[in-house]
């Protein structure tokens, strides 16, 4: 025992010593330098605003980093050997990288938002949902289809090189497609082997596909909307024996950044700006990226993430609703996407809501699904879920970008006239164009300031939703043989209690699926149904195999986020994808209808670029979905992000949405040239 005491003391001393020991660190040194920059200003000339550009020279204090034996290692940011003020640190959305050594995106799930899709790789095209544009990356323009959609030609961008200097050509595309067609075990193998008859390269910058059957949307597999088919560098992959187990380390891409280093535990990945960034599509399109280094870092809990953000150790963080409030309350250097309430990113092209398994009674009955819609007070619902910050949509696409103008506004008349048959000869018009106004009242009661402008309100809260009509819901249910017991609780037609268990994710507080589930459960409980949100790790499995009754899964497949083509949304309801319960299917809700199949078929034969036709058919599809209500669309997906402006400014906020605002989406690379250093 006696021997243990000094041992313990030594151990304790060692622990203490290592905390005060000066270590080699990055030291911040201030110096005054003269810089020249281009300033754009708006000035008034004879009552007209004119933009002028002028060159200014000024002296600023620049803090540069020097490596050496520092004396204050504990306060310096934890960025070993790399200058903090040339570095951007963002948090990785999908969490800790499970396989940090493996960059082979073509096999399994590889945490592609660690910087692979958003910095180091360029797709053929990208969706930018903020501008509604399709950005040409490796492609030089739109694909050119033949008349019956069995052949297409893709023009490729010239002057692009992989970051190791090898030029990017059509040979890379041909190699990629042929490899995908022949190698089973690659994610896209089945798609390419069933769709593609042949792929050829008439010249270095053109690729021609011959398809097995007509497919007017074949090219969208190369369109990056949080993932796409990527092009392999032929000169690396052609020597690989087993592509499935190949680690592709280091990653070789055509993006403006290249791999610098990464953590063996998967906590961080550092990317460095290419010296020849002008050989990447980003550089060609938008010029030189700002940050020299971009770090993707993982935080295992939101509290630590916020602390890192507040201490300027993470510039961009993805948060929960309350996490964002905490940041805005504690920080004076951070901003959110919007500068005032509701602060959040509300133009994400996805709609959240509640899904039903339409193969299981009573959810196979549209009347029952509609009754559940009418039992929801959308203002309270959005209040419970996201404190009023949601943009509601009455149809199965989100109310953002061009969708309100293209679809939801033209549908107002139809929606207002839409009637439900309540039985006993009465009908009911469920649509309520003033639903957003009810949300505005909720928000004002909470003490938040709401814009007065009607257009701004419509953008923030949506164009309309459905009435809160428990009486109508009651009649719909009674019409179908439901009844209430003596306590006022609902009974199924067979007389047993109606129990709804809404499957959702385990992280009940932060996840929008769960917030929908909780809000729906609260609403239906108030209506007299034994409803409860039930978290399950297996939610996604159970949804696909149909082993659920009600789930908070996406109510519909997400639209592209750019253009007016709703093929992606509607085709998911195609009856050929419906699987019996127990089998994995693309379509968890298992709803289909001959009318919808007809709409899908019509859309397949329409050129996606034909705006008028695509919108008209899309509206028909949305009408069928509203009539049948296979799932309940509620509010658009909300992103809670905070940007620290200590080191970098000119973020694409709501007042200046030059590109989509996320760092985890592919077009983040197109944001980098616009980020401006503060010089600190």
């Amino acid at each position, binding site marked *: 025992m006696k021997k243990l005491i000094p041992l313990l003391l030594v151990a304790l001393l060692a622990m203490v010593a290592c905390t005060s020991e000066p270590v080699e660190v990055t030291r911040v040194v201030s110096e005054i330098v003269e810089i020249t920059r281009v300033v754009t200003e708006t000035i008034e000339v004879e009552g007209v605003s004119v933009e002028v550009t002028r060159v200014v020279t000024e002296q600023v204090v620049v803090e540069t980093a020097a490596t050496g034996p520092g004396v204050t290692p504990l306060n310096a940011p934890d960025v070993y050997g790399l200058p903090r003020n040339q570095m951007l640190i963002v948090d990785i959305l999908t969490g800790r990288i499970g396989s940090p050594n493996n960059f082979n995106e073509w096999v399994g799930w590889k945490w592609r938002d660690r910087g692979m899709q958003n910095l180091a790789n360029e797709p053929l095209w990208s969706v930018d949902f903020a501008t509604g544009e399709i950005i040409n990356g490796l492609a030089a323009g739109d694909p050119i289809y033949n008349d019956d959609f069995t052949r297409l030609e893709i023009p490729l961008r010239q002057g692009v090189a992989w970051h190791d200097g090898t030029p990017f050509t059509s040979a890379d595309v041909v190699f990629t497609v042929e490899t995908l067609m022949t190698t089973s075990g690659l994610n896209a193998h089945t798609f390419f082997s069933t769709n593609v008859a042949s792929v050829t390269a008439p010249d270095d910058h053109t690729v021609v596909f011959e398809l097995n059957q007509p497919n007017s949307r074949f090219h969208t597999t190369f369109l990056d909307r949080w993932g796409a088919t990527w092009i392999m560098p032929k000169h690396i992959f052609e020597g690989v024996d087993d592509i499935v187990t190949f680690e592709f380390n280091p990653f070789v891409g055509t993006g403006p950044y290249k791999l610098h280093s990464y953590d063996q535990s998967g906590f961080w990945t550092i990317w460095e700006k290419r010296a020849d960034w002008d050989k990447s599509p980003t550089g060609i399109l938008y010029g030189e990226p700002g940050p020299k280094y971009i770090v993707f870092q993982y935080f295992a809990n939101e509290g630590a993430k916020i602390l890192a953000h507040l201490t300027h150790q993470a510039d961009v963080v993805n948060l929960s609703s309350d996490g964002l409030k905490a940041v805005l309350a504690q920080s004076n250097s951070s901003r959110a996407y919007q500068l005032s309430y509701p602060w959040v990113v509300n133009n994400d092209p996805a709609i959240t809501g509640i899904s039903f398994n339409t193969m299981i009674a009573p959810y196979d009955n549209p009347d029952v699904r509609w009754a559940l819609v009418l039992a929801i007070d959308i203002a309270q619902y959005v209040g419970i879920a996201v404190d009023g910050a949601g943009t509601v949509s009455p149809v199965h696409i989100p109310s953002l970008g061009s969708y309100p103008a293209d679809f939801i506004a033209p549908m107002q008349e139809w929606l207002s006239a839409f009637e439900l048959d309540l039985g006993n000869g009465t009908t009911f018009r469920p649509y309520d164009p003033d639903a957003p106004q009810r949300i505005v009242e909720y928000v004002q009661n909470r003490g938040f300031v709401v814009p007065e402008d009607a257009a701004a309100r419509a953008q923030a809260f949506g164009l309309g939703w459905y009435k809160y009509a428990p009486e109508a819901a009651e009649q719909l249910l009674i019409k179908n043989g439901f009844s209430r017991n003596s306590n006022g609780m609902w009974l199924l037609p067979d007389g047993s209690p109606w129990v709804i268990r809404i499957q959702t994710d*385990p992280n009940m507080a932060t996840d929008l699926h769960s917030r929908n589930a909780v809000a729906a459960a609260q609403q239906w409980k108030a209506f007299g149904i034994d409803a409860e949100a039930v978290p399950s790790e297996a939610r996604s499995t159970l949804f696909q195999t149909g082993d659920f009754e009600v789930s908070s899964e996406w109510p519909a497949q997400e639209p592209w986020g750019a253009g007016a083509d709703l093929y992606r949304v509607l085709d998911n309801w195609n009856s050929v994808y419906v699987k019996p319960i127990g089998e994995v299917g693309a379509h968890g809700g298992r709803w289909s209808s001959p009318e919808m199949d007809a709409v899908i078929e019509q859309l397949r034969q329409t050129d996606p670029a034909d705006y008028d036709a695509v919108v008209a058919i899309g509206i028909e599809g949305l009408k069928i979905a509203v009539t049948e209500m296979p799932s309940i669309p509620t509010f658009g997906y909300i992103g809670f992000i905070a940007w620290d402006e200590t080191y970098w400014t000119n973020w694409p906020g709501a007042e200046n949405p030059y590109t989509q605002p996320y760092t985890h989406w592919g077009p983040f690379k197109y944001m980098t040239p616009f980020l401006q250093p503060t010089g600190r």
Partner: protein
Amino acid sequence: MKVLRDLLRDYRFTASFIILCILLAYSSLSFFSPIDPTVWVAIARDQPPSSQHLLGTDSRGIDIFWSGAFAIRNSLIVALVAGVVSRFITIPVAMLAGYKGGMTDRVLMFISDSFLVIPLFLIIVLLAVLIRENLSLVTLGLLLACFGWAWDARVIRSEILSLRERGFTQTAILSGSGTMQLALKEYMPFVTPLVFATLINVMAWAIGLEITLAILGLIKLDIPTLGTMIFWALSYQAILLGRWYWLLTPVILSVLLFIALYWLSVSSSEYLDPRSRIQRVGQSLRA
């Protein structure tokens, strides 16, 4: 009555007795609660403590004072079920194994070792995931009891092994006592403090594990317990948003609960232990 008077002479017993009474009274208030702690936004959210809401309201619009009453009751149920039920397995197993030795010992220790070696957390997480929908407070307590006995059985068995070597067992055997009788009569006084200590450990462990499971989202989150209260407070960033009353309530409640249990067990096991009892009597005589 004399027992209680003797016990109350110990300040620790008095203190824990009072705390426990207060906690029990508080938790029994839940039976008369004016609110349903599973209904959101029935009242204003994020209200600081006031005369209307003694401990304020949380970000879900639920009164913290009342959900605290439910939480302490529910966590106590889990801890008691886990602690008491597991003692019913631990004590007989340890006594039999330690006293009988040989084959009995080997079989019993084989069973308890099998429970011990499977990573406990893995199994509890797996089972919680599997039966979460039906995971009531009692089932959670029983689940924890199933895994809370094996460790203590080993500890108590070692104590009995060492007691057995102390000679007095031989005399007892010679005087013709039966196994269980002997075990209870001869060993129980000596292992009682250990039983109490392990009981408190198991209850503290059960409360702690309930909190851990809740923080990971593995139990029903709309039943108020100490764990689920902490879960919601942490997920809604109560600390960084300055809503201290929300997080502090379950934390202080669990500290108080533990203090009451700990002192209660310490003072009563000292009281039960024949040797320190003599000591105390001697002291009180001197005084």
